[in-house]
């Protein structure tokens, strides 16, 4: 059979497409839930109407986004069984538990309270309604935790034994699965990156409105919140990335050697800035390197030895038998760089923005602006930037919206493809994980159907987002400002229209 269309290859493509697509929505859902909850908390505490308008505006975008996250998540729950039945048989005893926990604890939470939040504006007292969005936020974070614990087990299996008689892995220590350092650092890294994504989304859209001098009070608040989120989350993403990297250097040296296109072990090992390799020959043709940095990233020591691709391949051959244990090197190498590059670009734009649009700090009186004015873009003490540079900053801020999405996608492509040929590192190879009973035609059908459907939905979703972004924050109505005092709504008028309906 043509290898390019082998069921295993197709199943991998389908998993890659559906998962990367799903993960476009996940980080936005996680962060926008919390940010919207924060804005609504500000409304409830201060009764300043701009916070309620901001809540409604970002809440709407959040809902358009989460709808896609939820429906594409259904596929994730089932395709292990559909396309990876041998994987499911082998690891279900271990891997199934966090998935079931996720559904029982997190999914119910999220889906129930989101319904209450969407329809609850005129049915729930203010504070209870606010609690609902916080519940949704907690649900999204719990969900991330369980699924990342499951994924971490594939990266670094712990707390299990192999039952030879049944031919499967069996759980022996669930706590180890939930609390191993791989899981904790992956959760830390993914959540920080999620907030970087949501922050950048907010910055981009707020910048879009401020650049056009529209909806200034609400968008100024949003810009500020977005910028602070980007800077804090960006910093945490870098720190957690370093932590996760060190864990990976120990647990999956092959992945990290591939990430650096480091063919042969070196002490001290350099960090590669640019490389063009010859995979067949096992070395790089062109390379630009920073001496010693890789040793530091791996071991906190500028002169330590870092094993190379060829070393690890040989070691794994000795351990697991003959075979090629190298992942796709260019994908790992460039995926790693694009992840860091786009993520940190977004962080840099956020950091710059926080300084350039500062309210009062080191800002002379004449450059400070009122509540209804767009902030000046000020680099040095006494003078705002010229119109051209100002324009460039706002455009950069708008474009940063997409950067973390690209970084997230490459992060997952890197971490999953960097683990190949393993599905569960050192335990089960991907080629042994696929469903033997599902035919080439079936996988091809599903892959094409999912891809086509997702493409159409992407167009629908982006257009809808654009429409609501352009519309800006809604004007408040009488009903918005007089929330009910009783659960189920005050029965002032039995025929009053609902505040929100589908």
């Amino acid at each position, binding site marked *: 059979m043509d290898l390019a269309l082998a069921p295993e290859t197709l199943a991998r493509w389908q998993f890659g497409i559906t998962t990367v697509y799903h993960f476009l929505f996940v980080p936005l859902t996680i962060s926008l839930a919390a940010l919207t909850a924060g804005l609504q908390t500000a409304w409830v505490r201060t009764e300043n109407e701009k916070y309620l308008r901001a809540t409604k505006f970002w809440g709407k975008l959040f809902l358009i986004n989460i*709808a*896609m996250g*939820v*429906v*594409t*998540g*259904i*596929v994730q729950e*089932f395709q*292990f*069984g*559909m396309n990876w*039945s*041998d994987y*499911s*048989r082998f690891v*279900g*005893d271990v891997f*199934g*538990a966090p*998935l*079931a*926990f*996720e*559904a*029982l*604890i997190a*999914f*119910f939470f999220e*889906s*129930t*309270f989101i*319904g*209450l939040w969407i*329809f*609850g504006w005129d*049915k*729930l007292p203010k504070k209870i309604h606010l609690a609902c969005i916080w519940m949704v936020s907690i649900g999204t974070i719990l969900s991330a935790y369980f699924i990342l614990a499951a994924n971490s087990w594939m990266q670094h299996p712990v707390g299990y034994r192999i*039952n030879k008689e049944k031919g499967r892995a*069996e*759980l022996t220590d*669930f706590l180890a699965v939930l609390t191993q350092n791989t899981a904790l650092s992956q959760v830390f890294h993914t959540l920080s990156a999620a907030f970087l994504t949501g922050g950048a989304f907010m910055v981009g859209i707020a910048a879009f409105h401020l650049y056009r001098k529209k909806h200034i009070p609400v968008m100024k608040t949003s810009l500020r919140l977005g910028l602070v989120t980007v800077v804090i989350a960006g910093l945490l993403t870098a720190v957690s990335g370093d932590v996760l990297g060190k864990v990976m250097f120990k647990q999956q040296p092959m992945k990290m050697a591939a990430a650096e296109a480091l063919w042969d072990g070196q002490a001290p090992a350099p960090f590669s800035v640019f490389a063009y390799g010859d995979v067949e020959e096992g070395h790089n043709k062109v390379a630009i390197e920073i001496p010693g940095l890789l040793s530091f990233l791996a071991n906190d020591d500028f002169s330590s030895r870092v094993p190379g691709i060829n070393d690890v391949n040989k070691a794994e051959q000795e351990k697991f038998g003959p075979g090629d244990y190298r992942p796709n090197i260019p994908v790992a190498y460039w995926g790693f760089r694009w992840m860091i590059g786009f993520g940190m670009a977004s962080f840099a734009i956020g950091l710059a923005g926080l300084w350039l649009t500062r309210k009062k700090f080191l800002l002379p009186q004449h450059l400070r602006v009122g509540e209804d004015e767009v902030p000046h873009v000020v680099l040095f003490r006494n003078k705002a930037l010229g119109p051209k540079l100002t324009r460039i900053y706002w455009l950069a801020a708008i474009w940063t919206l997409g950067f973390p999405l690209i970084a997230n996608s490459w992060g997952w492509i890197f971490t999953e493809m960097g683990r190949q040929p393993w599905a569960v590192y050192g335990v089960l190879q991907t080629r042994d994980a696929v*469903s033997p*009973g*599902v035919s080439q035609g*079936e996988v091809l*059908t*599903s892959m094409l*159907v999912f891809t086509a*459907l997702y493409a159409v939905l992407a167009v*629908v979703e982006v257009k*809808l987002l654009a429409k*609501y972004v352009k519309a800006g924050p809604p004007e408040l109505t009488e009903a918005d400002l007089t929330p009910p005092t009783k*659960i*189920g709504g005050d029965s002032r008028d039995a*025929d009053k*229209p*609902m505040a929100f*309906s*589908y």
Partner: protein
Amino acid sequence: MELHDVWFVLIAVLWTGYFFLEGFDFGVGILTKLLARDRPERRVLINTIGPVWDGNEVWLLTAGGATFAAFPEWYATLFSGFYLPLLLILICLIVRGVAFEYRAKRSEEHWQRNWETAIFWTSLLPAFLWGVAFGNIVGGVKIDRNFEYVGDVWDLLNPYALLGGLVTLTLFTFHGAVFTALKTVGDIRERARKLALKVGVVTAAVALVFLLWTQIDSGDAKSLVALVVAVAALVAALVANQAGREGWSFAFSGVTIVAAVAMLFLTLFPNVMPSTLNADWSLTVTNASSSPYTLKIMTWCAGVATPLVLLYQGWTYWVFRKRIGTQHIAEPAH
């Protein structure tokens, strides 16, 4: 009763919860074409399930996840074996969810009409296909010694399974009509009751044949009890519907679903997926289940989480307890 038996019961409970809850919201989706006369009425229907459909659907995800964790072999065989029908169900659930959320987000006529059409078909197809799937699970399929499904997609479309599909389709439509009568006010409420009678009679006929077929094929005394309860409850639901006791009618149509699912699982036990090729190759609660340690952890989790879920989901229904009619549907601001 060993832990894998407990989990067999819990999986049955999860599917029951799913069919009870999403059963009526599939039904409501189908009624958007069968009952509603115009857009405001369609919107009334959609909004009766608006706040809850998503939570209802999680019962399916949980049934899937719990099967993966408690019976990995069952999960693997079922989902890889029923590949194409499952694909169709997934496509429907994806489009359906988006349809609910996006329909009202634009005011253009064609946009709203298209999503409404989508809601109808993506409610109807899964309502039918889940019955087909369960018909095949209970009736047995071609499973080889490695627990692999070796039949093709046409084998799944056998008369017994197709009849099962008709049962879920009609039963969910009935359940949805009864739910609509309970949750709406005005003209649509009266018409929902009239429609419920018609659909209910058809449901009773189809369900009786299917359940008797199941009983004769593989039933025992316990399953016979469940059968009798299911049929009696359906009759009671019809009577209550005629008497205008909508709450009772809904409760009884719910009991019908519970008893019918219970009957299927009772005839299944101790198998989880019988093989028609060789009885030794059937997946059972013992050979398909996870290790006792995993089941123990899962039992703790389910024991704590499930009552909480029932509590806050129940609370949601109470929050949105008011009936709605066309007067409650405002034109959304665009």
